[in-house]
């Protein structure tokens, strides 16, 4: 039964009963594109000679997109945290929390792919390279963010403190990624290899940057689903609770 009446414009996006063809097409395209990238990453790209294990060096095509989109997710999450503190709308808190969750997932993926590469190339899963320290810090911040959230009951307080912590912790991150590196021995991570011309060859760059595009698509899609789900839960909970409020009787007793 498709209800034609559009009572509440506020949630227009979830109003569409039949899924709009455009977004379905995009999602299917995402499936095909990312699968193609995975195949290309393994088969189409020539082994990267000059690395200890040329075959495995291809992992950079997965490692770098993960880390780029993860930082996009963390930035988006921090931006929504700022917006939440300014406007105190629950929807901004939901978006911030969702972006942090996806960010955490992507940072874990980045760490895993990085560790695999590091084992072969630099000899150990973990080498305390400055970039590894900053990713460790980001992982710990994400974990602390959710630990802090679960320890506060009042939803308004929880959202406000989580947002404040997110901004506060993110303010400390650049201290580790920019300030410290310039006084410690150079990082094992090659500098500017993905952006400069003579770094990676054309094929690698295509696969890598389209990987970033696809992963960003996944991030946006996951965000939309989660946000719509949570806003729905909020609406259901709100409609349930309004009926129970206490009745207020104001009477004039006179002086």
């Amino acid at each position, binding site marked *: 039964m498709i209800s034609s009446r559009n009572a509440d414009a506020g949630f227009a996006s979830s109003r569409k009963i039949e899924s709009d063809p455009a977004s379905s097409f995009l999602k299917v395209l995402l499936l095909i594109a990312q699968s193609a990238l995975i195949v290309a990453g393994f088969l189409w790209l020539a082994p990267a000679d000059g690395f200890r294990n040329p075959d495995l060096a291809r992992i950079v095509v997965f490692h770098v997109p993960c880390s780029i989109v993860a930082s996009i997710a963390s930035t988006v999450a921090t931006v929504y945290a700022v917006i939440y503190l300014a406007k*105190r709308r629950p929807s901004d808190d939901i978006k911030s929390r969702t972006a942090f969750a996806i960010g955490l997932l992507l940072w874990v993926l980045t760490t895993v792919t990085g560790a695999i590469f590091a084992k072969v190339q630099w000899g150990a899963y973990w080498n305390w390279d400055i970039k590894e320290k900053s990713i460790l810090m980001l992982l710990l911040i994400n974990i602390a963010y959710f630990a802090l959230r679960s320890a506060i*009951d*009042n*939803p*308004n307080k929880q959202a406000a403190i989580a947002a404040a912590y997110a901004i506060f912790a993110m303010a400390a991150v650049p201290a580790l990624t920019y300030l410290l590196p310039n006084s410690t021995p150079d990082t094992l991570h090659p500098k500017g290899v993905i952006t400069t011309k003579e770094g990676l060859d054309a094929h690698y760059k295509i696969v890598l940057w389209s990987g970033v595009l696809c992963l960003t698509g996944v991030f946006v899609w996951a965000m939309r689903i989660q946000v719509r789900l949570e806003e729905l839960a909020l609406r259901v*909970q709100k409609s349930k*609770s*309004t009926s*129970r*409020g*206490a*009745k*207020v*009787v*104001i*009477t*004039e*007793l*006179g*002086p």
Partner: protein
Amino acid sequence: MAYGGTTLFAGVTVDIRAGQRVIVTGANGTGKTTFLKILAGLVRPASGRVEVDLGNRKVDDVGERRRLVGYAGPDVNVYDELSAVENLAFLARLRGVPADAGIDLLKKAGLKRSKQNHPVRTYSSGMRQRVRLAASLLSAPPIVLWDEPTAMLDAEGRGFVDNMLKDHVEAGGVAVIATNDPAEIDRWGDRRIHFDG
């Protein structure tokens, strides 16, 4: 106003005039205390707003409202390690009022002079309540919000509360008091707001 996800009450429009004493009654948990805390700026209402009309200007910023309000409630305490005098001196300096402003308030609240310099740790709950009430009147705020002010007080204590309230209201102050004590409702209630769950 929703608080902590559950809507306690909605659609409250209250206009309280100067020199008026308003009694807020209702069973526990229906939102009496939350209502007072929202007025005091200790709790953020999910919707709606609180505005103080000072005649020459209107105040709706919660930070500024906090400075116009004297709140006393069971969960707002003073420092156990400090004496009543030290506590009030500290709060007075925060309020920008001379440190000894608390002395005569303590006298009005009926706290025996001998006890005033002992740490609050040694006080009975009735004496603590008197210190709370005195603290709420420190900078002669135009608005006084008391949550069950006489709950732990003996007859003599109630008499002191009456006087303090009378002085405050005669000076044109506004008082909003949450209580379920019928005697007080008749004595003070110019207007009454009742929350039934």
